């Protein structure tokens, strides 16, 4: 291919540069912020109950309410 083909190819290029970053080998724990959370599982707010009471306490209250309503 001749060098003259170069300019036309330049036009095809995207504005953004595409470069591969060198892979860094950081230990996993250095890449995470220290949150003071030392649990071994993934904590997710959505997975926990929002209410303050345990389910057994809530259910007790529900059953009591129903009992009152029935009487």
């Amino acid at each position, binding site marked *: 291919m001749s060098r003259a083909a170069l300019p036309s190819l330049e036009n*095809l290029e995207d504005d953004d540069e595409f470069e591969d970053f060198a892979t860094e080998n950081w230990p996993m724990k250095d890449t995470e912020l220290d949150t003071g959370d030392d649990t071994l599982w993934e904590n997710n707010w959505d*997975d*926990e109950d929002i209410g303050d009471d345990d389910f057994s306490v809530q259910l007790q209250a*529900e*059953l009591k309410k*129903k009992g009152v309503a029935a009487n």
Partner: protein
Amino acid sequence: MTEKARTVSDLTISQAIFELSSPFLENKSQKALDTLFSAIRDHDLAPLYKYLSENPKTSASIDFDSNFLNSMIKKNEEKLAEFDKAIEDAQELNGEHEILEAMKNKADYYTNICDRERGVQLCDETFERATLTGMKIDVLFSKIRLAYVYADMRVVGQLLEKLKPLIEKGGDWERKNRLKAYQGIYLMSIRNFSGAADLLLDCMSTFSSTELLPYYDVVRYAVISGAISLDRVDVKTKIVDSPEVLAVLPQNESMSSLEACINSLYLCDYSGFFRTLADVEVNHLKCDQFLVAHYRYYVREMRRRAYAQLLESYRALSIDSMAASFGVSVDYIDRDLASFIPDNKLNCVIDRVNGVVFTNRPDEKNRQYQEVVKQGDVLLNKLQKYQATVMRGAFKV
């Protein structure tokens, strides 16, 4: 020379320590003390006694007696001297294999009396020196037991990672089975219930690791892990109809709520399910050393499963009838369902004005199509940029 193994399982001890050190389980502390002391007395567990009297969480419950401790230490040292003698004899008379065998026996004795410090040290020494994979595996199991007995789950996890490749390389059937129990419990403790259920349900029929935990506990943990992770068909075949489960659950009064909870969900008796789930929360989750950290997650997920199971059969369902099925108020159902809907944990919408819940099953084909278009677009973009870079590079040279 082998020593009579401790008859009280590692996890029975760590559970008792947990009960003794948790203020909210005060009603269990006397029983926990009895368990610990009968084990300490029967097997001269001087290191455990010392640990309990020094640990700030448990020391208040221990009436420390130094004579008692010293008499046990004396017995321990006598035994250890015998093991040392056996190691010396092996060094003089026999080969490397017998020496390692004698070292392993001594390490097992440390595990037996819960001497973590010296036990771990000797396990490491033996591990380094051993050439046979089987010996390395056995020593690691001893080390894991020492971590389990003091409920150090971080270390248990690290050791299991070290153990797994060895078992794949040279583990016999028995050791593979042992790993299933050891790993299953660990996975359960880190909230990986589906992994735990696979392993624990699988090892029930051939379970022999009573040094770690009693048989009924492994069945109990298998059932608890399975109930939250298996689909309805598997719950039926692997739990409800499992001969191992049927042999254990109905025989134990303490398991009746667990059994009723799983059966009522399977049989769609939702109000019964709610009542027994509350009971399971109190009697099986909140008071268990491994499950206490997950009880809120567990109970919430079980409720979600029940709602999903009921809604699956309907296009629309009145909130009134749903509340009646679960035996709770309309407000409760409304609030509880609403907490699952935003992140699509339940595929439904609530029409509070008309008092109806509509289910909106996502169209799987459509979702996949959208996904392909989105990801394909990203890929094409990347390829284009890459091509540009490559071509420019090629011409510069």
